[in-house]
């Protein structure tokens, strides 16, 4: 009998795991597509299974989830069509828009090149670190868009929609949840799935209006006791451009629960309101609660960098490195600062560290090459540049050629320098710096007409540079066109008021005009 029992071995109903468990496991292993597939199957069998439904929303959300605190780019429309009236003449040092070009002891504009917005070049390329705030609509539409860094028109429509469509392409057959038919009030009361649903609507569907609706009703259902919903409400307001409402929600959330993310979001609100000092206060409050938090420290140093207070920015980047010795942004920024403060040998150390950490691209070799050259380690210089050239994409190669041009100028090989600058122009037609340097070389050769054309092109391509204006003014002064020289040297001084050579040229011209 016993053997019979053994023979009627109960057949295993399924020789696989419980599909929900499998889906969960896949979710944890970040195999989101697999997870979504299993969930879809299960939902086809039982459309009302909330656990599966919730898992699927989360899997779909995770696929497109972006950390909003980092790397947010302000769109053209956000910058220019901002209807929040902000004092246009802010007190110095209290506004990111009117930060003076060189202040507080950092290296001057002569040594440290500036970005299009007139800020000193940062060590890393972040969204917004290259473009900055344009002055006029015309400038906004023209300058960044000709170069490779095309700025989206608006943060809400541009990037987020692009991400949304990307996710749609991947799922293929229509959307998972029909938002228009969603009974928001019902789900708002079901806390177990409301949060997952919110994130799905917010990140995956990018429908801020519905997300806001859900968040508002959910927080109401919980009698305004849950800080998480307040943060989400704040996010929605922030995305909609209602910064003061967002500020209120974030502050209220912080009263209930200290959270790094909330501090970061509140700080961003103040940055968008152009109140860097207020956001510094927020970040410092956050640091009191979470000492040594790297994201907060980084945010502080970014603000100081925006305010052109480079020594302070570097101080905070150093604090970052104390807490996280492998922080790429901090290492790169400190390295850049050392390089432009005439300490290339120290910068070399920082960039070498980046290389050891496994960053292996054109930019790093380019920087290493420059550091080697200026720190007089000549044997390494050209090897680094060679490698940079071999690794370079179309975008970066122009800068490598441009820097090689500088090396060639440094060793006095004018011909090589000339070829390098021309090659920089081949890969990037809008390389204003190369045009300017070519102009100087042509000027030395005596081709004044060509030099003048180059200076003019350079000035129109990079309106943030004072060098082409000064060079053009000097050229005009040399050929005796004093009136032109006078007008153009004033442009140079507008961009860099402390430029001594321009001031002297202006003084000479004024005496010319005043002499009877």
């Amino acid at each position, binding site marked *: 009998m016993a053997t019979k029992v053994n023979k009627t071995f109960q057949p295993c109903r399924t020789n696989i795991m419980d599909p929900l468990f499998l889906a969960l496991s896949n979710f944890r292993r970040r195999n989101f597509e697999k997870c979504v597939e299993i969930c879809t199957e299960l939902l086809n069998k039982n459309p009302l299974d909330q656990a599966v439904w919730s898992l699927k929303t989360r899997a779909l959300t995770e696929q497109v989830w972006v950390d909003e605190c980092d790397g947010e780019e302000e769109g053209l429309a956000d910058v220019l069509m901002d209807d929040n009236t902000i004092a246009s003449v802010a007190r110095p040092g209290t506004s990111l828009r009117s930060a003076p070009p060189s202040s507080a002891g950092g290296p001057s504009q002569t040594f440290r090149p500036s970005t299009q917005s007139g800020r000193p070049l940062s060590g890393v390329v972040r969204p917004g670190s290259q473009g900055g705030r344009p002055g006029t609509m015309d400038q906004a539409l023209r300058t960044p868009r000709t170069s490779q860094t095309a700025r989206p028109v608006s943060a809400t429509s541009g990037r987020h929609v*692009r991400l949304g469509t990307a996710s749609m392409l991947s799922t293929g057959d229509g959307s998972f949840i029909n938002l228009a038919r969603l009974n928001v009030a019902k789900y708002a009361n079901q806390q177990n799935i409301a949060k997952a649903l919110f994130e799905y609507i917010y990140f995956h569907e990018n429908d801020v209006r519905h997300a806001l609706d859900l968040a508002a009703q959910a927080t109401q259902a919980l009698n305004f006791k849950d800080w998480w919903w307040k943060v989400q409400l704040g996010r929605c307001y922030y995305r909609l451009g209602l910064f003061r409402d967002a500020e209120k929600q974030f502050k209220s959330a912080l009263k209930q629960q200290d959270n790094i993310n909330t501090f970061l979001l509140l700080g961003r609100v103040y940055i968008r309101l152009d109140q860097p000092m207020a956001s510094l206060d927020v970040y410092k409050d956050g640091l009191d609660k979470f000492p040594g938090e790297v994201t907060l420290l980084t945010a502080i140093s970014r603000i100081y960098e925006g305010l052109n207070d480079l020594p302070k920015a570097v101080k905070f980047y150093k604090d970052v490195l104390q807490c996280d010795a492998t922080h790429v942004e901090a290492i790169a920024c400190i390295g850049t600062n050392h390089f432009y403060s005439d300490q290339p040998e120290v910068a070399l*150390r920082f960039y070498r560290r980046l290389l050891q950490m496994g960053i292996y691209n054109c930019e790093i070799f380019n920087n290493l090459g420059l550091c080697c050259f200026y720190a*007089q380690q000549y044997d390494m210089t050209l090897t680094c540049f060679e490698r940079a050239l071999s690794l370079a994409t179309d975008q970066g190669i122009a800068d490598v050629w441009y820097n090689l041009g500088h090396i060639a100028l440094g060793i006095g090989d004018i011909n090589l320098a000339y070829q390098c600058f021309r090659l920089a122009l081949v890969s990037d037609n809008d390389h204003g710096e190369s045009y300017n340097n070519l102009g100087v070389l042509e000027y030395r050769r005596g081709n004044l007409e060509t030099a003048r054309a180059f200076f003019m092109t350079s000035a129109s391509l990079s309106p943030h540079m004072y060098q082409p204006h000064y060079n053009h003014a000097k050229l005009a002064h040399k050929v005796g066109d004093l009136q032109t020289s006078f007008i153009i040297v004033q442009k140079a001084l507008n961009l860099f008021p402390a430029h001594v050579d321009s001031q002297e040229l202006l003084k000479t011209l004024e005496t010319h005009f005043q002499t009877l």
Partner: protein
Amino acid sequence: MGEKSNSSERWLTAHHDPLASLYTFGSCMALADLHGDGDSKLIIADLGTGAYNMKLKVYKGTNLMSENTLIDLPTGVITFHMDTTEPRVPAVAVASGSYIYIYKNLRPYFKFTLPTLEVNPTEFDAWNQARDELLDVSMLYEILDSLRQEVGECGLTTRSQRFLMCHDHASQLTFLEQHKGFLLKRQTVVTCFSTLKKSHAEDDAISCLVLGTESANIFILDPEAFTILNSMSLPSVPVFLCVNGLYDVEYRIIVACRNGQIYTLKRGVKLGRPTAELTSQPVGLIRRDKSIIVATMDQYLYSFNNKGKRLWSLKLPAPVLCMESLEIRTLGLTLTALGLADRRVLVYRDKHLVDTIHTQDNVTAIKFGRFGREDNTLVMIMKGGSLLVKILKRTARFEVEESQGPSQAVAVKLSIPKKTKLFVDQTMRERENCVLMHRVFQHDLYRLRLSTARAYVSALDTSSNPVSLSQSEPLKLSAQVLGLGPTFKLRVELQNTSSVTPSLELAVVFHCDDRIYTVNQSFIQIPMLVPGIVHVAETLVTCISELGISDTVRVFVIKGKANRPLLTAVINMPVAEVFMAT
């Protein structure tokens, strides 16, 4: 403003007379107890209008006590003890022209005349012959004029100098008639003078007079007999004197001369020893303890030690008008006061600025000392003639503020970044492996030149350059994208960069992936390009891709029927925005 409040804390204004109408310099002022009653008087040799009305004025307190008329412009006033009679009252010596007038009890007492100089024999003969009417006036004028070319203005007697200033014949004749009967003498004038204690160092001991003259001599006079005890010579005319020591024991005279040199004279030498060379003419000289402080015309204040080694120098904010040393015995301090041309008086302790006094006018003369019954009194004469007397408060201190730094006037040092230890280490490496490093660098450089040249040639071959510098068609192309999409405007700017030759038969061609973009006008004919003028060609480009991607658009500039483009520009198109929202 902080300085202002400081100075009002330290100084009390004792007397201010804006209508004193004094015209004098620091060397023509003295403070002395002239009557032995313990009440110091202020003695001022007033230059009057500069031509007449010269007076020796004595102030007792705020009142003008006495006035003596002077015959010539005064160059210095000094008080000194010339005998041992009781009560000990000093005599006043006024240097004026080539005389020294000695006043005792404010009454003329003695006149000392400087020894005459040798008259040039040619000049002497000329005047003698003119007197005997062997020469007429114009002949005399010519002889003297040529002599002036030869020996210079200073080599002539004052009579000849004055005669040469008469330009018309009549005045020359009257001058000759007036003066020809007198003996021709060549005199020199006193430029500066000072006192030197004879054998005792007490305050009221007998002093000798030390004179500097226009003939570049230094004379030391005996105070009783008024004979020249010692005569020394200098290479240039002395303008400032500083004397210390005792005549009978050892003394040292420091002289600043008109040639910008400082000389030192000691007992027993006949010729001044060059001590220091200045960058400009001196405007004031002070000696204190072991150092010499000189202000110069180029707005510098220098300090030298006795050997002539420069201790420090300061760039002053304005030209110096006068200089005075403030010896405050109660504090054991010797300060330097400088009257500047920006209506300030700066007080320095060594090279540290310790006080600033703001005045209503430029101060031309400063004297510090005992005035009335007050020990530390600062007497200042303004350019407009007013007299200002300030008393130093007993509580005043002149501490050097460390936070203030060495003074604002110190030249700012260049902030040269310090070289790191790392740099030094790397330099060591460079020094040890220099040959190897050089070889590697040169080797890499050759390779770089080669690869650059290759890349350059290939760029030229494909004409993928926005600038053409060929002799035939020097052109420059720049392109811009305008608009937000899906329809963009491409703007191509063409410029002929040659100086004279125009470019003909040019055309612009746009090339792109036709699945992504459509170009409205892909071929644009360019009219004749005049040198220097920018020609703009525009077209519309529409993005037709549904994928929302961006691509590049190439712009070629071609000439005639040539099969190769002259120039190429690659435009990276931005992502079309509005298209996505639909």
